[in-house]
């Protein structure tokens, strides 16, 4: 390598390093090759008593829950992590809030390293896990908030004032002094969210905040997250979800995660444009059998076909065809369906959704 090449390489490395430093300094959350591996015992193949006599130690299986993730989230951004169950979303959140220790890599949260400055990280984040658990159900909503305020060293007077403000923010003032065991699912979820806010952290990690809620309650929570938390209070928010509509509606940018790896990153528009060369035919039909999927996939011009059985007695199903040219492939698709005895009701060309992006990247539906 000549002297000039060496110099160029050094400059490139310096600029890379400088970039990294700048991104760490400007990003509220920055992950650097963040990795988490879990070990579980593999099944022993032998049966019955022979397994006791073989003296074989079961091997450990390594599961890569989070696989070398590199992501930067800007201050004030609402960043989504979209993926199916078991993709690694919750594990990523647990790593960032120091409930798990990474096996490789690290992350900076609010400028603090998650492995070396764990306590400062914990003071900077509010984590909302949601669900029926995670609250002291014999205490009232207000008592829960004051208890956690105490653990975060929030002074008494400030804690009381803030608890009241947060209770009003989520419209729980009528029930704030009732035991949590009497709350509905939606009320508990709202309490979870304000519990994460009691110490006024700059960063919020929301793990599937609308999971299990009815559509009306979910809408209320989403509006609250977007309008109050992000726009009014300027919080940096990392939100995980497997509801693509939620990611689409709320997130400034998002990462799609599958098997622990980030497979796509960008705004909703950017991600959909990735598959804009893929057109989608949406067909509603009845008398659809399972083998129709294989028949459609074998057609020229069909990139992928998915089947969703809506009613097994009538064979009513939704068929989604991914293709380069919907117009040219439509006749052969219809012909094949007619041959298979399918009764077609509706055929329409559809705009790509995030679910379609996920399907095009993985070949599976988000909820498979």
């Amino acid at each position, binding site marked *: 390598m000549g002297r000039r090449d060496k110099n160029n390489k050094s400059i490139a490395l310096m600029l890379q390093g400088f970039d990294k430093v700048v991104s760490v300094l400007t990003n509220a959350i920055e992950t650097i090759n963040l990795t988490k591996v879990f070990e579980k015992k593999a099944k022993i193949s032998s049966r019955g008593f022979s397994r006791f006599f073989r003296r074989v130690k079961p091997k450990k299986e390594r599961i890569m829950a989070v696989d070398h993730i590199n992501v930067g989230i800007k201050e004030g951004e609402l960043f989504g992590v979209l993926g199916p169950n078991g993709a690694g979303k919750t594990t990523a959140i647990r790593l960032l809030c120091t409930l798990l220790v990474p096996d490789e890599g690290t992350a900076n949260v609010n400028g603090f390293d998650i492995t070396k400055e764990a306590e400062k990280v*914990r003071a900077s984040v509010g984590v909302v*896990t949601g669900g029926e658990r*995670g609250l002291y*159900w014999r205490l009232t909503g207000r008592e829960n908030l004051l208890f956690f305020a105490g653990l975060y060293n929030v002074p008494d007077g400030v804690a009381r004032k803030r608890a009241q403000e947060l209770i009003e923010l989520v419209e729980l003032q009528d029930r704030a002094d009732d035991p949590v065991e009497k709350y509905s699912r939606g009320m508990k979820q709202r309490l979870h969210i304000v*519990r994460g806010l009691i110490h006024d952290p700059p960063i919020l990690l929301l793990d599937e905040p609308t999971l299990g809620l009815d559509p009306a309650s979910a809408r209320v929570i989403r509006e609250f997250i977007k309008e109050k938390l992000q726009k009014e209070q300027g919080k940096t928010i990392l939100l995980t979800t497997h509801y693509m509509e939620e990611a689409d509606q709320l997130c400034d940018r998002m990462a799609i995660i599958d098997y622990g790896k980030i497979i796509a990153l960008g705004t909703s528009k950017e991600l959909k444009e990735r598959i804009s060369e893929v057109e989608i035919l949406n067909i509603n039909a009845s008398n659809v059998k399972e083998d129709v999927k294989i028949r459609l996939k074998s057609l020229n011009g069909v990139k992928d076909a998915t089947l969703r059985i809506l009613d097994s007695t009538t064979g009513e199903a939704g068929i989604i065809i991914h293709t380069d040219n919907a117009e040219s492939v439509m006749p052969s698709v219809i012909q094949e369906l007619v041959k298979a005895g399918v009764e077609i009701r509706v055929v329409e060309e559809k705009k790509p959704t995030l679910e379609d992006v996920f399907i095009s990247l993985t070949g599976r539906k988000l909820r498979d």
Partner: protein
Amino acid sequence: MFFSYRISVLVTILWPIPILALNIYQYLGLGPPETLAGVIGKEYGIVSLSGMVIIGTIIYLLYNRLLWGTGASMQSERWMGTIDVLFLTPASRMSILLGNGVSSLIEGSWWICGVFILSWFLFGIGITIVSLPALIITLISTMLALISLGVFFASFFILTRAAEQVAISLQAPIRYFAGVAFPVSALPQFLQFISYILPITYGIQALRKTVLTGATLPNLLGELSLLYLFAGVLLFLGYCMLRIMENKAKKDGSLYQY
């Protein structure tokens, strides 16, 4: 809980009575109380049979209450799903455990008094308390040692749900070796060393001396020193184990599994 479910106040005081009755009447089945008291007093220096059993049983039940209140508090946090939100706060783990311990201690204090008074009324105890400060200090020292034991156990409850089964399986042996229903000196010599590595043994002995034989603080120095030694050592070990177990639980992801 006591404000939410008032009936639990009554039940908490009443439920040990059948256990006490069982232990006391097991002895009384062997002969008249005066004869038994004479034998036990001559052999082991204890003058009140029912007093011996009541104090031993109450301290054993207190040990269970403080073990489950402190040590297993981590397990109940895990069941409630609050262990991870607790560990997200800057609050030190020791302060969380000791807080649970202190609340168990406060609950335990009134409960001990209630059960003791009721037992005294039902079964009679030959009380000879000469020094009230000695009694209070002995009681507090015993509770501190038992809380420390709970803190030590807590680290195992963080690591694995199996810790609960281990704690349950230790209940009967501890009851036996601590001399709950009979003096430790009645055990075979080669087994007595086990008794003397249990802090609860010294708590029972010290309280029996204070309540039944009129011992004062100078008479209790041996037992009290050992109780404080246990408290210090177990607290230190508990602190170290807590850090090790928490790190391990964070590495293998078992912290929030219930």
